[in-house]
């Protein structure tokens, strides 16, 4: 092989490697952006459904307050947590903060549901039964939306932690996203 051919070979090899590395960056970056967008889209679904839930609870609370079977402290908690949720959404709170508030809200609402299901005389009140049906419906939607969100987070986190994406994900501003939990924050006990 002549000297010219050797140089040409080296140039072609370097250009080839640069093109492949460049392609790698583009593919990786686009895939991380796509998965991040999916996570954000699923997060907005959860937020929308909680807005619906908070609205339904606003209509349900005056109904259930008429019945002494429901714990007054539970209803007070729900009222306070509704306000906290609306304030957190308005202030663009972090996913962790929203998740914590919603866990407390869900725990209190489930208390109301348990009480409702324990008393047949409450179930016979058609209006309340319909509101409870709406709460069940929105809970199912939330459960589904949380599942979709957590699956999207798992996919995104797997993507940015896998080689070779993990080498440059941080420099592009991609970091691991938090799952949406349903447990109460550590050490917290439901105040009843």
């Amino acid at each position: 092989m002549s000297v010219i051919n050797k140089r040409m070979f080296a140039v072609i090899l370097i250009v080839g490697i640069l093109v492949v590395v460049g392609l790698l960056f583009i593919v990786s970056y686009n895939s991380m952006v796509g998965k991040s967008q999916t996570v954000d889209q699923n997060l907005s679904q959860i937020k929308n459904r909680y807005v619906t839930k908070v609205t339904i609870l606003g209509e349900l609370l005056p109904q259930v307050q008429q019945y002494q079977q429901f714990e007054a402290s539970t209803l007070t908690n729900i009222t306070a947590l509704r306000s906290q949720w609306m304030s957190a959404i308005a202030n663009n709170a972090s996913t962790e903060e929203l998740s914590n508030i919603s866990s407390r809200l869900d725990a209190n609402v489930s208390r109301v549901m348990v009480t409702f299901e324990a008393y047949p005389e409450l179930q016979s009140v058609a209006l309340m039964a319909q509101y409870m049906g709406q709460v069940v419906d929105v809970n199912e939607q939330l459960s589904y939306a949380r599942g979709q969100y957590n699956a999207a987070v798992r996919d995104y986190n797997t993507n940015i932690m896998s080689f070779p994406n993990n080498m440059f994900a941080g420099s592009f501003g991609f970091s691991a996203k938090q799952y949406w939990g349903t447990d109460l924050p550590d050490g917290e006990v439901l105040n009843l």
Partner: protein
Amino acid sequence: MDRGKRNAVIAALAFLFAVLLVGTILVTVSAPKEDLSWVPTIDDYVNDRAGVLDPGDAYDLEMFCEEVEFNNTCQIAVLIVNSTGAVGVNDYALKVFEKNGIGQEGKDNGVLFVMSFDERAWRVVTGAGISDILNGGRLTEFQLTYLDPNLESGNYSKGITLFVYAIGLELVNNYHSSGGGGESYPIDFIPLNWWQLGLAIAVFLVLMVATRGRAFLWIGSIFLGGRGGFGGGRTGGGGSRGRF
């Protein structure tokens, strides 16, 4: 090995490595997809795999669901099983809905009613496009009026039938599809206009002549094979559930 050959081998190996690297990124950096092979495929509107429905009710429901789809494109599916195993009726119903894509693609206007008889539990899953019409409050009303009283008295077939009728009528009265039903056709039950009908007849005749009648066998299999399945609708997970 001379230098030329060695350089060629190095270049080939470098290229192979680069291709493998890009391929690895494209293939392995996503979390593994969920295996849905255990989820049943349903083709009919009414799928009674536990023998709960009276044959007459099952037939009437099948016809009713077909009418609803023809009327405004909403798809209603009923699935009754003996057990959903360890999955539970809730997740089972959601997976059946997702796998079968009940409802029209883009309209997401499907409804699935699943009953697991041994677990004494049922679940309604609504498509994202009709969850406002068939909201939890409305479904609870139907449940209290039609489903619960009949399930409590052991009239399972009647309860399910009336409940699904109520769901279907709610959709017929309140869901208006853009581009769905409402268009009139020369022959009511064939959704083709005059020129499409003429073309279909011409193709049929050509096929019949060209194949010396063997096309009859081929066309016959369409009618023997049942429905073609559902349309690709998605759910938001909403609906209703209960026990009996």
